C-alpha cells in the first residue's frame, strides 16, 4: 500500500512539474525574415547571426519576464516573392508575436501590407524612407533615414563652400532611393547638382564617365551614393584621373572592405556613418558607447568577422522588441503600443525615440561624419 501511495505521489509530482512549465512560462515566438543567402547575404548574414547571439544571451538570462524566446529565422535569399510566402508562413502557421526584417527595402515594401492586415509588428532592418513614411501602424524600421545622410552631406558641403556638385549613384534600390533624396533636398542647402549619372552595380571600370564629369569645370564636389563594390571603382578612377576633388560617399560606404578595395584612393573620402564604426573612439560618456563596444566585441569573438552596421540594425530591432515585450507581454497590440512609447533608448544606430507618428525613432544625430585615414575609419573633424 505504502508503495502504491509513494508511486502515485511521484507520478503526481511529475505530472505537476510537466504541466506546470507552460503555466509559468509561455514561449515568445519571434520570427525573422532575412536574406541569409543570395546577393543580399552581406546584410542578412550578420543580421541572422546577431539575432541568434542575442536570443541565446537573453534566454541564458531567463528570457523576457521568465518567458523563453523562440527565434524562427526564415531565409528569403533577398527575393521579395519568397519574403511574401515566408511572411505568410510565419504569421499563419507559426503564429509569431512579431517579426524582425526583411533585410532589404524591396522585400520590406512587398510584405508591408501583409503585416498591416495581420496586425503583427514588423521591425524592418532596411533603410528606405518609404517603409515608415507614409506611416503604417504595425511597421517600424531601425536603420537611419536616407534623407538624414543626405542632409549631413550637404551640411558639410555648405561648411566647405561647395555649391556645384556631381552625383553618381549605383542602379540598386539603395542608389535610386539615395538619388531621389539628394535631388529633393539639395535646393534646401543651396546646392546645385550639375551632373548626375547612374552606374551599373556590376560595372568594372568607370574612367570614361569620370572623364566626362571631370571635363565639367563647375563641379566642386562629388557625391558617390552606393552600397555595391563598384563604388570603390569610382573613387579609384577619380584619383587615377589625377583629380583631387572632395569625394562624399553615403552610409553605404561604411564597410571596411570597400576601403580596402579602393586602397590609397579611399584616403580622405567623407561620409556619414553609424557610430558602430568608431565604437572605441567614442567618449565614455556617450550613451551608445558601452552598448556598441560590447556588441562589437561579442560579435567579433563569436563569429570571427568584423561587426557591421547591418548586424547592428538587427541588434536594434531585437532590443526594441525585448523592451516592448517586457511591457506588453505576449500581446501584439500591447507590444506595438509599447514600441511607440519607447524613448531615449540607445541602440547601435542611434538613440531611439519612437512615437505614434515616428516609426523610425532616429534623427540627424544618429549619423556621425567620418573619413578614411591610413586605411581606417576615423571621425571627420573638418578641414
Amino acid at each position, binding site marked *: 500500500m505504502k508503495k502504491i501511495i509513494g508511486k502515485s505521489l511521484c507520478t503526481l509530482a511529475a505530472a505537476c512539474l510537466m504541466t506546470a512549465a507552460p503555466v509559468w512560462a509561455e514561449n515568445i515566438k519571434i520570427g525573422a525574415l532575412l536574406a541569409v543567402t543570395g546577393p543580399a547575404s552581406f546584410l542578412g548574414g550578420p543580421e541572422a547571426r546577431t539575432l541568434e547571439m542575442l536570443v541565446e544571451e537573453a534566454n541564458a538570462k531567463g528570457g523576457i519576464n521568465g518567458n523563453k524566446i523562440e527565434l524562427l529565422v526564415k531565409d528569403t535569399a533577398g527575393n521579395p516573392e519568397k519574403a511574401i510566402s515566408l511572411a505568410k508562413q510565419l504569421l499563419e502557421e507559426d503564429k509569431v508575436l512579431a517579426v524582425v526584417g526583411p533585410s532589404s527595402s524591396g522585400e520590406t515594401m512587398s510584405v508591408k501590407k501583409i503585416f498591416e492586415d495581420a496586425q503583427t509588428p514588423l521591425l524592418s532592418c532596411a533603410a528606405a524612407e518609404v517603409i515608415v513614411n507614409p506611416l503604417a501602424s504595425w511597421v517600424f524600421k531601425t536603420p537611419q533615414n536616407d534623407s538624414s545622410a543626405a542632409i549631413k552631406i550637404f551640411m558639410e558641403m555648405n561648411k566647405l563652400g561647395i555649391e556645384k556638385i556631381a552625383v553618381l549613384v549605383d542602379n540598386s534600390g539603395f542608389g535610386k532611393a539615395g538619388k531621389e533624396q539628394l535631388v529633393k533636398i539639395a535646393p534646401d542647402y543651396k546646392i546645385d547638382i550639375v551632373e548626375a549619372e547612374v552606374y551599373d552595380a556590376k560595372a568594372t571600370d568607370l574612367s570614361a564617365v569620370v572623364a566626362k564629369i571631370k571635363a565639367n569645370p563647375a563641379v566642386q564636389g562629388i557625391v558617390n551614393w552606393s552600397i555595391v563594390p563598384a563604388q570603390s571603382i569610382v573613387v579609384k578612377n577619380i584619383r587615377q584621373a589625377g583629380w583631387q576633388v572632395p569625394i562624399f560617399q553615403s552610409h553605404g560606404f561604411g564597410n571596411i572592405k570597400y576601403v580596402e578595395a*579602393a586602397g590609397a584612393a579611399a584616403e580622405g573620402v567623407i561620409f556619414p556613418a553609424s557610430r558602430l564604426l568608431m565604437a572605441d573612439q567614442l567618449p565614455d560618456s556617450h550613451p551608445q558607447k558601452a552598448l556598441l563596444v560590447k556588441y562589437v566585441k561579442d560579435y567579433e569573438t563569436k563569429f570571427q568577422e568584423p561587426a557591421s552596421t547591418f548586424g547592428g540594425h538587427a541588434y536594434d530591432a531585437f532590443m526594441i522588441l525585448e523592451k516592448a515585450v517586457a511591457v506588453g507581454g505576449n500581446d501584439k497590440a500591447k507590444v506595438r503600443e509599447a514600441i511607440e512609447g519607447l524613448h531615449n533608448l540607445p541602440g547601435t544606430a542611434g538613440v531611439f525615440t519612437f512615437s505614434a507618428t515616428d516609426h523610425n525613432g532616429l534623427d540627424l544625430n544618429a549619423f556621425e561624419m567620418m573619413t578614411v585615414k591610413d586605411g581606417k575609419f576615423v571621425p571627420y573633424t573638418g578641414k
Partner: protein
Amino acid sequence: MTTELFIQYLVAGITYGSIYAIVAIGFNIIYNTTGIINFAQGEFVMLGGMLSITFLQFLPLPVAIALAVLATMAIGAGIEMLFIRWLKQPGILRMIIITIGLSILIRETALHFWGANVRSLPYFVGNEISTIAIFGARVSPQVLWVIGTCGLMVVFLNIFFQTTSIGREMRACAANRVAAVLCGIDTRNMVTLSFILSAGIGALAGAVMSPITYTQYDIGTGLAIKGFTVAIIGGLGNSLGAVGGGLLLGILEAFSVSVVPLAFQDAIAITILLVILFVRPHGLFGSSAVAGLKEF
C-alpha cells in the same frame, strides 16, 4: 571636346576593348575547332583572377599569376576531357547547353570557395592613386599593363597559328575537320588543346585586369556577353576581326557616355549586336561565303 578629353575616352575605350577582344578570341579558338560557342569562357577569366589572388598569399606576384594561368589551363583541359571529349557526334545545341551548365557549375563552385566578396590583385606598379600622363590625359599604369598584355597575347597567338606545326594543325581543323582527319590530324587532341589555350589567355587577362575591375565569382557572365558580341561583330572564328570588333565596341562605349547617360552603355553593346546579327550575320570583318559553309 578637348584633345585631353578625347584621349581620356580613347584610352578608356581601348582598355575595355582589349579585354573584350581577349574574351572574344577565347570564343573563337574553341569555335574554330569545335564549331560551338563555349559559354564558360567568362568563367576562365574569373578563375584566372581568383586563383592568382589566392596563390599570391604564398607566392610572389609573377609566380602566382603564372601558376593561376597553368591551373586554369588544367581546368580547361579537364572540362573538355570530362564533358566533351567522349561525346559521339554531339549536336551543337547539346554542346552549348553543356557549356552553359559548366559555366553555372564553375560560378557556384567559386562562390562556395571564395564567397561573394570582391577581390583584386595589387597594382603591378604603383598603387590605386598612381597615374601617368599621356598627351594630357591621365591613366593608371595598370591600364598599360592590360593593353600591353592583351596586345602581346594577340601577337603570340598569331605567330603560333601561322608558324608552328600544332598551330597549323589547329587551323586545318578549323578549315575542314574531315580533311584534317584524313591528313592524320587527331582532331580530338586539337579540341582539348583549344580549350587549354582559350582557358590560358582568359586567365591571364583575368589576372592582369583584376586590379582595375576587381574579381568576383560572377563576373564571367557579363564578360561572356560582351565577348560574344565582339566575336559576332568581328565575324565568328576570325581572331583579328575580334581585335577590331573589341576595340570598336570598347571605344564606342567609352565615347557614348559623352552623349547618352552611362546607364545606356550596355544597351549600346546589345543594340550593335542585334544590328550586326540582322544586317551582317557574318560580322563586319567576316566573309558571307565562308559563314555560309558553317553549321552555326
